[in-house]
């Protein structure tokens, strides 16, 4: 990912005892403008893919759930869907609806969390506190339905563990009414707010061709006009039974991603309402047999499972060898697909924009840390900025400069107007 080596190098991280997880990148700068960037990840590498091989399929649900605390349902769903494909199990409709419901609640919680973090990175802490306060509505619903705020553990092989009662359905609908009010407020204020516009408009632009070339997924791709969404392209759970729109934008900058994410929260509310209103009666599990009995005879085969996590397309590859433990599990997370766009969009932007450009793809380092081990810790050095210092620097720099012009990205053939609205067949 490294490019030109001329100019000054600024190491950022890996220690930034701030909001996010450990990551290190080196910026090559010419004055205030970044000319090249290099990323080093995997400070959170724990060796989960290896540990998975020593555990049974059931144990692995709970291990894989702990890849990431923000999209835990995404990982368990992708894994259980893959195993169900291996076993040829039909998940009953009620279980599929409950999976959809939890998945969408999780999407809201993740996007609200991102909205807050983005607000914090641009020095707009009011938005941070607002978004995290409203996120508690969803956290309470998740706790009420599943018994836990973060690791819901609702999925099991062949279905779900907990039923949804009528009382809970009413609570969900009431909660969605409250949340709808707040989302209407965000949809109206955030894109028009001067603070947000100043720091997000035409920053971190990923044009449509670049997004396609680098296979950007999730909100990053959709904000650049690439309408990819696994929920529409290859429906799983109950997504073929519910109505929703894929939100896209053609500007590809940070403001577009913010608008897309808020729009997706509104769509998630729409899906949750439909699910809560027309969830069918029926069983929760595909088979009355205990899951251990089913999993004793997993045939030798492999499966690829796709899931639209809050950050984009998540892929689990599972190979079984006829025993009760998997022979290989590989996980491709959405953040990994989006990192290259960060490196590209950092080039030509100001140093002060780094925190928000990096946060703009909603990075999840603990998801991404699947590969690469680096233990010497030699880079960085005494002069390293930590990300938080960089955030302060960014806020101060904009305060001093007032209204600044964007560095020109012309000449590289990358402008905000390159992309056009993508059409869905």
């Amino acid at each position: 990912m490294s490019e030109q080596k001329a100019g000054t190098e600024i190491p950022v991280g890996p220690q930034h005892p701030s909001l996010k997880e450990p990551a290190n990148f080196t910026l090559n700068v010419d004055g205030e403008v970044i000319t090249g960037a290099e990323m080093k990840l995997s400070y959170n590498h724990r060796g989960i893919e290896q540990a998975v091989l020593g555990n049974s399929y059931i144990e692995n649900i709970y291990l894989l759930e702990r890849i990431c605390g923000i999209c835990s349902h995404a990982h368990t769903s992708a894994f259980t869907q893959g195993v169900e494909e291996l076993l040829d199990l039909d998940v009953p409709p009620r279980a599929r609806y409950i999976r959809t419901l939890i998945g969408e609640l999780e999407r809201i919680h993740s996007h609200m969390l991102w909205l807050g973090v983005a607000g914090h990175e641009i020095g707009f802490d009011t938005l941070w506190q607002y978004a995290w306060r409203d996120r508690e509505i969803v956290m309470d619903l998740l706790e009420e339905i599943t018994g836990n705020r973060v690791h819901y553990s609702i999925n099991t092989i062949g279905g779900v563990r907990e039923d949804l009662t009528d009382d809970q359905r009413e609570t969900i609908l009431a909660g969605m009414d409250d949340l709808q009010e707040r989302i209407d407020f965000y949809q109206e204020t955030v894109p028009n707010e001067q603070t947000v516009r100043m720091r997000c408009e035409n920053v971190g632009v990923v044009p449509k061709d670049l997004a396609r070339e680098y296979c950007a997924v999730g909100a990053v791709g959709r904000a650049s006009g690439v309408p990819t969404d696994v929920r529409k392209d290859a429906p799983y759970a109950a997504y073929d039974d519910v109505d929703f729109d894929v939100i896209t934008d053609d500007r590809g900058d940070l403001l577009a991603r913010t608008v897309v994410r808020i729009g997706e929260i509104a769509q998630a509310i729409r899906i949750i309402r439909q699910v809560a209103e027309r969830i069918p009666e029926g069983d929760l599990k595909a088979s009355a047999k205990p899951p251990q009995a089913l999993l004793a005879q997993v045939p030798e085969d492999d499966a690829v499972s796709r899931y639209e996590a809050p950050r984009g397309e998540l892929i689990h590859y599972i190979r079984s060898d006829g025993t009760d433990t998997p022979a290989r599990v590989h996980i491709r997370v959405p953040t990994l697909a989006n990192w290259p766009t960060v490196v590209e969009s950092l080039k030509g932007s100001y140093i002060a924009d780094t925190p928000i450009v990096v946060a703009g793809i909603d990075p999840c380092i603990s998801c991404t840390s699947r590969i690469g081990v680096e233990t010497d810790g030699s880079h960085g050095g005494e002069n390293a900025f930590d990300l938080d210092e960089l955030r302060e620097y960014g806020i101060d720099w904009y305060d001093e400069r007032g209204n600044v012009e964007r560095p020109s990205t012309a000449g590289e053939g990358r402008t905000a107007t390159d992309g056009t609205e993508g059409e869905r067949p």
Partner: protein
Amino acid sequence: MGRIIDWARNRSPWILHLNCGSCNGCDIETLDALMPRYDIERFGILKKDTPRHADILVATGPVTKQMAPRLKRVYEQMPEPKLVIAAGSCASTGGVFHDCYNCHEGVDDVIPVDMYVPGCPTSPEALIDGIVKLLEEAGQDAQAERLAEAKPEIVEEGARIDEAVPAADESTAEIDTDDNPEEGTDEPEPVEA
């Protein structure tokens, strides 16, 4: 002077949060404690971004091999007296990652820990409770030290105040309160409505 520092620290402990390979679950819950619902800032508990300003290190995650030297370095940079909270099951024992090849088994493999707050993830309530309990305990140690200095005949060296001064023995308990009337060894002040 030490008394003033103790008093000030007990009223407004500043915490440093460090992710040592956690899954984000404990991290978002730790941050959640600072958000409007729990809002621990009203007790003077502030999240600081540099180890040099912090009194309490809240470490999450099983501590990966890459993060272990960095955790140690952050710990060494914190000024004394410093306290360490291991937040979450992974930080306490290694949790689900106990047999992963790239992980230590919890924070106490690398640095000494004063308080374990288990839970997967630890809830904001549990974390706040952990901080308060830790401060109470640390305050007792400090009080015992001062008492030992003033009245060496009633306190054996190293004993805590509750061990050294049994609650049933009213005469010594009285001495204790008379001797140290203004010390801030209690919980942080509750907020005014």
